[in-house]
């Protein structure tokens, strides 16, 4: 027999239940939410004994919290920066870059956990139910514990980044800009950076130009237009994934009053935006290669990318309903398209690396 409790946002215990601080032996799992994101918000929790919750190993919970599968989103730009500067003979301070990479990994993990905590506290994850397992929703960890873990990882990232700033003072400026943007994003977006128009812009800057500039400066190479161009290209690609994910939740987000590019556009226009966004990505890809890459790789990768993008265009244009399996299929195909683009980058830059080192000369 389950036990339930219904609490209003203004109730003194509401936050304790939401953050999982109300008991040492029990956990509160949100079952139903009314009037989300308003002073009248009411949540019904199911009270479950912690001992009855089936948890996977702590390691699996940690990997799930930090979204290990998305780690390549910050590692691939690192690979790009390392190869580019090695090829350009600007590989000046690899030790600092290595330290910065560790700082980046910790902050990436911290931000992903913070994202889950914010989604839980704002109720976003109760509206947009994700097929992926969310440790807080499953009761594997409380929001308070996850938040503490996020702060700890942030602290470690800050400590690690100190020597980076000492050795490469310009890095302090990049970090300052990033911190300002993160706080501006928090003030602007109630749900997360993915779900407000200005939040999307901030996310764009952080995910692309922010990441590559950070690596580049840590390497002692200074920011240049090529790295910024790649940052924009990369951010454009990541933003495509964000739009694709938001499109998956277009119905539920719209009903809950969540604002983003997809909900503002509506179902029919959003499909066109998604297709247009990826077309624009291909144009950016061509431009980047025209200015900064070899002709051979420009032609080859563009042709392959266009060929690989066809299923994405077809899947997105064929979506008939804001609910249903078409959405999941399109998301999967779009994500696979993005991964294949990453593979192209790796192969192309591996070739530049090999060319520099004469690996391919018999």
């Amino acid at each position, binding site marked *: *027999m*389950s036990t*339930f409790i*219904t609490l*209003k946002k203004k109730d003194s215990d509401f936050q304790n239940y939401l953050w999982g601080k109300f008991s040492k032996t029990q956990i509160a799992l949100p*079952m*139903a939410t*009314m*009037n989300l994101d308003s002073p*009248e918000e*009411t949540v*019904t929790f199911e009270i479950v004994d912690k001992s009855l919750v089936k948890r996977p190993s702590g390691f699996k919970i940690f990997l799930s919290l930090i979204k290990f599968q998305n780690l390549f989103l910050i590692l691939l730009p690192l690979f790009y920066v390392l190869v580019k500067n090695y090829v350009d003979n600007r590989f000046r301070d690899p030790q600092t870059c290595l330290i910065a990479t560790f700082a980046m990994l910790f902050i990436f993990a911290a931000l992903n956990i913070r994202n889950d905590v914010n989604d839980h506290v704002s109720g976003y994850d109760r509206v947009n*139910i994700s*097929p992926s397992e969310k440790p807080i929703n499953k009761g594997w960890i409380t929001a308070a514990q996850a938040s503490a873990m996020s702060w700890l990882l942030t602290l470690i990232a800050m400590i690690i980044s100190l020597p980076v700033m000492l050795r490469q003072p310009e890095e302090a400026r990049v970090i300052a800009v990033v911190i300002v943007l993160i706080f501006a994003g928090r003030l602007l977006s109630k749900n997360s950076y993915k779900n407000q128009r200005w939040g999307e812009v901030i996310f764009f800057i952080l995910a692309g130009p922010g990441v590559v500039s950070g690596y580049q400066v840590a390497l002692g190479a200074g920011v240049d237009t090529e790295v910024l161009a790649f940052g924009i290209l990369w951010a454009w690609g990541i933003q495509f994934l964000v739009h694709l994910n938001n499109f998956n939740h277009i*119905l*539920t987000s719209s009903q809950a009053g969540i604002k983003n590019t997809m909900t503002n556009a509506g179902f029919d226009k959003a499909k066109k935006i998604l297709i247009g966004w990826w077309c624009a990505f291909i144009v950016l890809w061509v431009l980047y290669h025209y200015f900064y890459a070899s002709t051979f790789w420009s032609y080859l990768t563009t042709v392959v990318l266009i060929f690989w993008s066809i299923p994405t265009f077809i899947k997105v244009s064929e979506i*008939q*309903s*804001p*609910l*249903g*399996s*078409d959405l*999941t*299929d399109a998301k999967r195909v779009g994500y696979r398209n993005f991964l294949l683009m990453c593979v192209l980058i790796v192969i192309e830059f591996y070739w530049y690396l090999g060319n520099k080192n004469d690996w391919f000369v018999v």
Partner: protein
Amino acid sequence: MNLKIFSPKDFPAYLPKLNSLYDDLFAGGKGFRSKLVQMVSNPLVLPAETQQLLCQTIEFVHNASLLHDDLIDRSQLRRGKPAAWAKYTPEYAVLAGDYLLARVMVNLSSFGNIKLVQFTSETISDLLEGEWLQDSVVGDFFVSLEQLDRIHNLKTASLFKWCLRAPFMAAGNNDEELHRTLDEMGTILGQLFQRSDDLLDYDIRNDEGKAILGDLKSGYLNSFGAFVTRDMTRAQIDQMVKSSDLNEYYQCFAGGEKEFQSYVQKFDAVNEKMIQLYDHHLIQLEKKIQKPELIKSLKPLTEILYWRRKPKA
């Protein structure tokens, strides 16, 4: 109180076929929604004419949705008789449904309770949204239970919410907390009713003799279907779609009928938890209103709607 929901006097006699269409439509319905309205209205001591208005409203809205629903689904039969669009014309079926909704607005606005008019309009909007969404997932055999719940919340639960809340609104009680609780209860009742109705398709507790695998054959994966297919392979789902009877359907499961029955038990267990949640909200309601007779009558609804059995005395 014995209510007459439909009277030919309410509609213009000069319109050809309109009254005979409504005669067919309103005959044979169980009128469960109007009974629910009465169940809530009686303890609130609403005047007989107000109860009549509320019951008529919900039945008009419900039957308008049936007229449109049958046409959208191309269902040939309604309550064992030819569906209105098939017997008359699709155009008449659409217009007759629209006419009922217009009549609802005329009657309610004459009553003069603007909150009730607004709430009813929202309910009709939800109903239409649900219908629209449901049509958009026809032929999708990979739709998830959570996605179907969203549709059923709009299409089915919206009317249950109306039945619970409208009598309070008509009585002038617009307390927000009370209405939130009633809203939650209506949502659960609607979901339970829909899920139980979906089980009939698989001949589970099918005392009313509903057509077997009707939803599946119409290209619509219902809630139980979605519950089962989430563990199935693509090949199993392809085989399931082709099933022409239950025996063929059972063959989609590695363990045959036995495994199918175990899924029914698991589905019941999921819904049992929803029933517990309903009981929790009922306790919340009891704290808010001093109407023990209302609580007593609302208590067995899950038993009736989901388990389809008469409540124990």
